[in-house]
């Protein structure tokens, strides 16, 4: 059993989570019309034998999507973070309402 240490809930068996695949791919903007960008996002995977950044959702728990760094050769987990925290860095912060 992988034991994933959810930043909210603590270490849990991986069957409390839903896998979401490669987290290193970049989702094009919702209105990006470039088929090549979408093709790459949906299909192309580096699939490394080694450290893999991947999405897991703590679906039977806090329901947060996480980004886990895990070695695919031995399943050792190097880090776990909230996906939102990482993706928020990429998108502009919202100003608090006046």
């Amino acid at each position, binding site marked *: 059993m992988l034991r994933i240490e959810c930043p*909210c*809930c*603590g270490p*849990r*068996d991986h*069957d*409390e989570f839903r896998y979401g695949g490669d987290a290193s791919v970049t989702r094009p903007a919702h209105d990006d019309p470039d088929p090549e960008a979408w093709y790459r996002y949906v299909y192309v995977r580096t699939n490394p034998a080694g450290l893999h950044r991947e999405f897991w959702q703590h*679906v*039977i*728990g*806090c*329901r*947060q999507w996480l980004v886990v760094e895990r070695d695919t050769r031995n399943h050792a987990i190097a880090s776990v973070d*909230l996906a*939102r925290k990482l993706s*928020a860095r990429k998108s502009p*912060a*919202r*100003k*608090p*309402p006046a």
Partner: protein
Amino acid sequence: MASPDFSLSVADCPLIQVEGWDGTLGQFESSLSTSLGTKLPASVGETVRHKGFLVIRVAPRRLWLALDDGAQAPSLAVDPDLGCSVSLDEGRVRFRMAGADIARVLSKCIAVDWRASAAAPGRAVLTSLHHVPVLFLRTGETACELMVPRSFSRSLSDWIADAAK
């Protein structure tokens, strides 16, 4: 229930969920805290008891207010620019369990370490019971509650009753 040292009772489970937006969470929490008249649990799994209800943090930006039996729901006005609320009054069932045998019975149901600080009295744990998401609430030395989805509740109470044999 076969075990004399374990009891299970089933009750309704009125809940209100409130959730704040990213970025303005601090503001949201302080206004919520003011309108409830209590401080809020800081991290997921923490709870705060206040007149007639228990505040549980179930996700970084999400709180549940679980009402005691017969208690009136607190009046909540959530500023839509800060967050939102939804009533979850009907969708869950509350299992109350107690007895000296409780840790043994629960060990056959959920992967929660009864002796860990994360499961100490007053703590809440969102976890899986036979693949179903449940909220475990430690209420005492030999007592706890589970909030389970209503549609699964009969299956799950059967499962627990069976585990208590």
